[in-house]
């Protein structure tokens, strides 16, 4: 099914108590597409990203990845909550990169990358290690394999985090403000790695404030505000000629 979209959100809503963070979000991400989610803080873009791998449970609507409903099993017109084991199996195929890297501090860069393939997939150590070293080389950190995260710069940590997510061979990568916690001079090295991934055809959803990245790398740009999709389209067009006044107001501040 190469034509079915990778991610389909159909009127997805999410509330924390009485606070409705996402209001009926509908969008599609095609295979190999790079989508950038932009918007002011509190607009719900990170929450939406976290719903995609079931770190948050959606309150209403349907969210599916690769044709598979996330977090629920559907049978006889009824939805059944998934067992933790089934949810974990779905998450294997979805890589996630966090704003604060969240590397395991008690493991070296190499061990960080090897952990999930060994524990979750049960692969043999030798094969995993070769692959992990190749991944670290891909993100430019072959020489830093034996460093603990505390001895790596922010940009290097984030690149290890990307390698760690890639080690599970995901079909979809989610980036939650991957460069927001970095010193400005370190942003470039992380964006370069992400651009390389996009070039290799990885499907990516990126929550970001880097409009330059959105313009150059993304295939589509979605502007969210107040829990709704305000505007979406081809990045160059949306950035150059925003239609909605909220998009205009936001872009005038960040560009």
């Amino acid at each position: 099914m190469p034509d079915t979209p990778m991610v389909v959100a159909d009127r997805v809503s999410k509330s924390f108590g009485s606070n409705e963070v996402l209001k009926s979000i509908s969008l599609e991400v095609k295979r190999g597409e790079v989508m950038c989610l932009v918007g002011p803080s509190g607009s719900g873009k990170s929450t939406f990203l976290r719903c995609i791998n079931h770190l948050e449970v959606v309150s209403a609507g349907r969210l599916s990845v690769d044709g598979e409903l996330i977090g629920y099993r559907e049978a006889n017109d009824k939805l059944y909550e998934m067992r933790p084991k089934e949810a974990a199996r779905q998450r294997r195929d979805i890589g996630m990169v966090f704003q604060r890297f969240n590397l395991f501090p008690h493991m070296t860069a190499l061990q960080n990358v090897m952990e999930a393939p060994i524990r979750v997939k049960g692969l043999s150590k030798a094969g995993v290690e070769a692959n992990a070293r190749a991944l670290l080389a891909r993100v430019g950190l072959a020489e830093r394999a034996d460093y603990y995260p505390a001895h790596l710069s922010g940009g290097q940590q984030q690149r290890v985090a990307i390698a760690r997510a890639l080690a599970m061979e995901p079909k979809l990568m989610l980036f939650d403000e991957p460069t927001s916690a970095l010193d400005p001079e370190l942003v470039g090295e992380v964006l370069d790695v992400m651009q390389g991934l996009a070039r290799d055809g990885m499907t990516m959803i990126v929550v970001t404030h880097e409009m330059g990245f959105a313009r150059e790398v993304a295939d589509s740009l979605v502007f969210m505000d107040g829990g709704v999709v305000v505007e979406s389209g081809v990045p160059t067009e949306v950035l150059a000629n925003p239609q909605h006044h909220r998009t205009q107001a936001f872009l005038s501040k960040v560009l």
Partner: protein
Amino acid sequence: MTDTAVSGGKTEPGIKAIRLRHPWRNTFAVVLLLIVALFVVDAAMRPAYDWPAVGKYLFDQRISQAAFVTLQLTVYSMIIAIILGVTLAIMRLSPNPVVNSIAWVYLWVFRGTPVYVQLVFWGLIGTIYQSIDIGLPFTEPWVSFPTRVALSAFVLAIVGLALNEAAYMAEIVRAGLLSVDSGQEEAATALGMSWFQTMVRVIVPQSMRVIIPPAGNEVISMLKTTSLVTAIPFTLELYTRSRDIAAVTFETVPLLIVASIWYLFFTSILMVGQYFLEKRFARGIGDRRPDKKADDATAAMTGVTPVVGSGQPTVVLPPTDPHKGDR
């Protein structure tokens, strides 16, 4: 940045200043040493301490056997307490309200009553429940044996100490688990790791750094709390044994010294063990790096002599990333 002059570049000679003196520190230390020396000399001569008797009993077989029993009580009850404590801590953090409540009630009871009272209760268990029956309620038991036979005073001492200690260990472990950043659990979950894998591989190893110091405290505390098992009554441990010998020979003070020396010996060993455990779990935190090179960034900073003008803000920019080339 075209008209900015680059300052620094060559390293200035190190500062040679006269060290700050601390005359009172030294005076105080000398006075203190004198007082200690006086006390030691006095104690050595004082007949009440009866040092020859201390020497005689220090390696007396009854004492060394009792010391071994004390060590056994400590180790066994601590092992049970740690296992039970970890279980209770995880139960307390569980989203399951049933499991959570059980742990809460356990802590309420065992932390809320004195350990001495609990030990007396354990001692009376043979009186309260005269036999242990296995079978279905309200029917003839399949097996039945008297409690006093099944549970010796030694076993009851371990059970009593362990169940009390588990309540304290549970809170120590819980604090440790909570100290780990929530992003760690999220990252592990996002990688598809199960809850159990996340706990064992990610959360628990990181929480050990927080758990070990207070847990070490608890082990040392337990070593000394074993002297309370006389409440059961169990009399073969170090303190009670020393008291019993002293009661016959009237050598109370020397035997107290003997017991103290043994307690100190064990705690010293435990402290060494704790040091190595702490080192083991500090991986990734200390400043050990695979290469011993000085940090490139700091190296680049030395030799820079910034000039800060008064009344205007100065911004210190970090040097450009020295690792940029390795991509």
